[in-house]
């Protein structure tokens, strides 16, 4: 039977360091998706994710609800992505869509599919970081506004506004593509 998050956390805190590997495997891919979409390229995403996992290990004793380790780790990752995004802006880099992430999609109509994916990635990349974060948390990670508020420290009203604006912006950007 698969160990629960709480069991694994307890084992790690008692010095069974390899138990942490099970937590890494459990959350690696799911949270990689958020990081890739948030940061726009696999290299930055992996760096942010790795940093989130190592930070979580260093302060594991502060995880107040070990049965919700995943949610706690995700909060660390969201903060880490914010820092990484801010640093990228300071470096003057532009958002680059991720070819690697796109390769995992289905191959039904490869050319059209790839074009559509690229347009979506590009449109998501053109959102402001705040809007992108709110949109991904709401629609891709499927979180409620209360959970989003807990993770981001932003009020529910402000988050709703960001999501609404993100949706409007995405529709506008993709309508332009359709009509072009």
């Amino acid at each position: 039977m698969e160990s629960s998050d709480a069991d694994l956390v307890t084992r790690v805190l008692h010095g069974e360091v390899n138990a942490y590997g099970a937590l890494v495997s459990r959350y690696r891919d799911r949270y990689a998706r958020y990081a890739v979409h948030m940061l726009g390229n696999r290299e930055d995403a992996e760096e942010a994710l790795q940093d989130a996992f190592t930070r979580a290990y260093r302060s594991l004793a502060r995880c107040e609800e070990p049965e919700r380790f995943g949610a706690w780790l995700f909060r660390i990752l969201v903060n880490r992505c914010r820092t990484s995004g801010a640093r990228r802006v300071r470096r003057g880099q532009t958002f680059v869509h991720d070819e690697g992430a796109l390769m995992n999609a289905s191959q039904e109509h490869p050319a059209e599919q790839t074009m559509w994916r690229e347009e979506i990635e590009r449109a998501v990349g053109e959102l402001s970081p705040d809007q992108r974060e709110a949109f991904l948390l709401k629609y891709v990670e499927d979180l409620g506004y209360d959970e989003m508020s807990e993770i981001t420290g932003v009020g529910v009203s402000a988050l709703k506004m960001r999501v609404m604006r993100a949706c409007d912006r995405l529709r506008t950007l993709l309508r332009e593509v359709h009509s072009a």
Partner: protein
Amino acid sequence: MPEWQRSTLELIVEELRRPVKIDESFDRRVMVHVRRTYARRRRRGIAGVLGAASRITHHPAWAAALAAGIVAIAAMGVARSRQRPATAAGSHEPVQFVLVAPTARSVAVVGDFNDWGLNDSALIATNHEGVWSVTAPVPTGVHRYAYVVNGKDWVADPSAPRSAGDDFGMPSSVLVVEESTK
């Protein structure tokens, strides 16, 4: 909301929800960092306690108490490095025992200084959001002790050296209590 717009949003979300696979070498890279951190903490003799210390900084009333626990453990390290003879003088020194056990329902300390908990002499730790702690006077000298979690699970202190011969087949740790210099 117009139908075209709604379906566009759904298509975007469907696309963004596709799984992103990370190379399995990622796990190895993370675990290299984790093991390094673990080894560094073990060398400093504070594995399992450092995290709790930073956690307590959010609760000022407990910061001093936990800091005292770390000092006590540090003092043990000094005693070992000097290779002081194990003497059992008559004096007692206050020792704080700290165990991070977020899911535990109860934690008690048993050792040769309290007859291994016989006759209800186990030291009952208090829970502070997963950090269990109890302070008690312990005679100076070398002692063996362990934590009893949930009244049945006997665990050695992850932040202290293991006893060479585990007592009664149970894991136990070594505690060196020095006489205060004050």
